């Protein structure tokens, strides 16, 4: 076992050195992995692609998470656990027909429900912050968006 492990280590080291010493040569075998994307836009794109969306929806005047919302948040939590360096902001929205301050509170409550669920699934609390737009941004009523910051 020990010999095998040492051998494997040598091979890996050798491969690494060889690759470093031969820039510009056409590689054989499978394509290397993409480098870690680090721009915000790229992270946002990957987050959205791998978690099935950045927006979850609620019922009227409700902050209860339904099955589709939980599925999306489950995928988001898995991604966030793999990317502890990424922080996200959870932005809650109220219903456009609601009154201003109640809508603000409903949006905050929805955002907080989403945050609690992500934390329940193992995402560190420091990784997720919340806010509410109430009914002040049109078009996204009864929803929460999770934004990579």
């Amino acid at each position, binding site marked *: 076992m020990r010999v095998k492990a040492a051998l494997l280590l040598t091979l890996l080291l050798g491969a690494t050195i060889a690759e470093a010493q031969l820039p510009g040569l056409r590689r054989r075998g499978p394509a290397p992995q993409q480098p870690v994307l680090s721009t915000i836009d790229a992270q946002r794109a990957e987050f959205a692609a791998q978690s099935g969306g950045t927006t979850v929806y609620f019922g009227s005047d409700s902050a209860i998470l339904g099955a589709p919302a939980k599925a999306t948040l489950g995928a988001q939590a898995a991604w966030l656990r793999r990317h502890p360096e990424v922080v996200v902001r959870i932005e809650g929205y109220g219903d456009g027909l609601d009154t*201003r*301050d*109640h809508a603000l509170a409903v949006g*905050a*409550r929805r955002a907080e429900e989403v945050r609690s669920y992500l934390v329940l699934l193992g995402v560190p609390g420091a990784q997720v912050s919340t*806010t509410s737009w109430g009914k*002040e941004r*049109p078009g996204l009523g009864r929803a929460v968006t999770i934004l990579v910051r």
Partner: protein
Amino acid sequence: MKKVFASLLLFGTGSAATAQQPAATVLAIPPLSSPDSGDKGNQMLAIGWNVTQAIEADLRQTAEVLPLKPNRDDYYPYPEVTGPNFTKWRQARAKSLVTGFVQGRSDGRVTVGCYVYDVDKGRELARKGFIIGANDWRRAAHKCSGLAYTAITGAPGIFDTRIAYVAETGVGEARTRRIAVMDSDGQDHRYLTSGDSMVLTPRLAPKGDSLAYVSFAGGGRPSVRVLNLDSGQERPLVPGDAISFAPRFSPDGSRILFSMMLGANSDIYVVPATGGAPRRLTTSPGIDTDPSFSPDGSKIVFESDRGGSQQLYVMNADGTGQRRITFAGGWYAGPSWSPDGQWIAFTRRGQDGRRIGIVGADGGGEKALTSGPGDEGPTWAASSREILFQRSLGTGRTTLYRVALDGSDPRELATPQGGSDPDWSGVAE
């Protein structure tokens, strides 16, 4: 005071709006006179004409008083200020009359005298004099309008008051919002914030020296800030980064009520207006918000969805004795207690939209005042006879409207741009 029905104002909107006949007292306001002669007399008469027109504009804004258009031909000599020609004004169908004078003083300022008469009875109702700077005639006009309004209706005047609101330009994502303040006649309009951050719900302190509002400037989380209007300095209402909103001053200006999120729970807190530790007044797991003090400061009305839907509740100022006062169905929100203590104005949500209504402070005698469907955010005039609110039009534009308790139609209050979240101050000292 006897009133005549003003047929001009008679076009009701809905069942509730026509339940009570609107009535307005016709008032004559001939141009103010002057005891001065020569060039000085002409200067004083020019000021008097300005004051006359401003009084007419003030009173035309009310539902209860209908001023006749001032006419320069109706000029009267100084002795007639206190001995008016009642026969003439009876023939003009006026029920009330305002006379007055402007007199120069040796210190450069002017005295404005103002008299209010009952034309039918040929009797003086009120008189008052004001010493002002010659350029400050608008203030004298507001005082005179208030004197006439109070003499006719018995309620405090609303003319020397300020309105704070959110000035809105653009629609949708391109909308910018700034806190603005103006005199209730639209004069002295000023912007207090730059438009870089979203702002909501400005609330004036009773003395008008500071203003609490909600800003999204702090990292996009809404929180209450207090702006000193004299120094321009601003501070957060409470430390920390909790979401806070729905501020309102106590009638004596010493305390500020507001809502704060603790996790998913919104409760009502009170904090000294000068800063300090907030005290929590509600503990229900529901959304408690939009608190408003009774005029004596002993009670607080607020909205809560603790029972499953938004309803109005009243509690003592220390948070004890919480009880629900609305049971008529639908959702009730954004309560505001009238300055005379009798009524609570609210926004009622139903299947057909949002409309403004009032209910007695004990929960009885509910009345709808507007037909919606996009009305919200009632705030009281100092007279307790009118309410200012915001109306969202189908175009995406929101503007300010005022409506009287007498059931007459709401009228738009002109602002330079669109407006929302109005707050109407009491009468300045």
